[in-house]
């Protein structure tokens, strides 16, 4: 049940991040990105190559839930794929990749 909710949450975050409605920032740990809401936060990190950790924090900053599915684990391939996608989007959001791309396109607009 909880895993299904996590998949739902990850997919909503993918959608909202892709649409630019959710803004991620770099967290304290390397390769970790954080998005905060008024009473909770979510982070996605890549502790190792092809491993993703998805964590939820409460209003006191305590990690209340964390999941780190393995790619080879056949019970969690959907979640693993979603987290990989979310990690990529969160990284682009935190690094302001879209804004930089737009700026470059404007600057180089005259060149074909």
């Amino acid at each position, binding site marked *: 049940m909880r895993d299904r909710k996590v998949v739902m949450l990850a997919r909503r975050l993918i959608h909202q991040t892709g649409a630019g409605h959710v803004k991620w*920032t770099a*967290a*304290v*740990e*390397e390769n970790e990105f*954080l998005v*905060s*809401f*008024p*009473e*909770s*936060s979510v*982070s996605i990190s890549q502790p190792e190559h092809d491993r993703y950790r998805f964590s939820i*924090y409460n*209003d*006191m*900053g*305590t*990690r209340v839930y964390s999941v780190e599915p393995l790619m080879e684990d056949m019970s969690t391939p959907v979640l693993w794929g979603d987290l990989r996608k979310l990690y990529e989007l969160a990284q682009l959001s935190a690094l302001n990749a879209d804004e930089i791309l737009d700026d470059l396109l404007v600057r180089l607009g005259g060149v074909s």
Partner: protein
Amino acid sequence: MGWLDDFWRDTVAAAGIIVSLVGFTIAIYQAWRSRSAAEAVRVAMTQNLTAVDLERAANGIQEIRNLHRRGEWESALYRYRDIQRMLSDVRVRHPNLTSSQRASIQGTIVRLGAIDRRVRETSQTGVNPIESSDDGALLKAQMTLDDLASELKQQV
């Protein structure tokens, strides 16, 4: 000339009613204005108190940075939890904060928790537990709170 007496009596009565109505309207308007003014003062005071609380938390982070620089890890570790609680209280006590301001405070609480965990883990190894990136993260948290405080003061 009885009809003339009646005319003047009715006129005076009507004028009296009009004057009363005007007076009543003015009284309502003044009460509404003073209530609006009192409400504006109350909102301004609340905003100012919130800003002061956020500045206190930002000063607390500066204290932590100073303790880290002096190598007083144990004292610093106590302060992390204090500031997290202080920030959590700010959200509860100041419902005037916007959703985005509350989210900024939440992000700061999580960041402080992450640095606290890292310092706790590494301080047990005897190695200098604070890295320059941690001080950068603390500085960022401090600046976030200072910016929020300034934003609230500007709204007053």
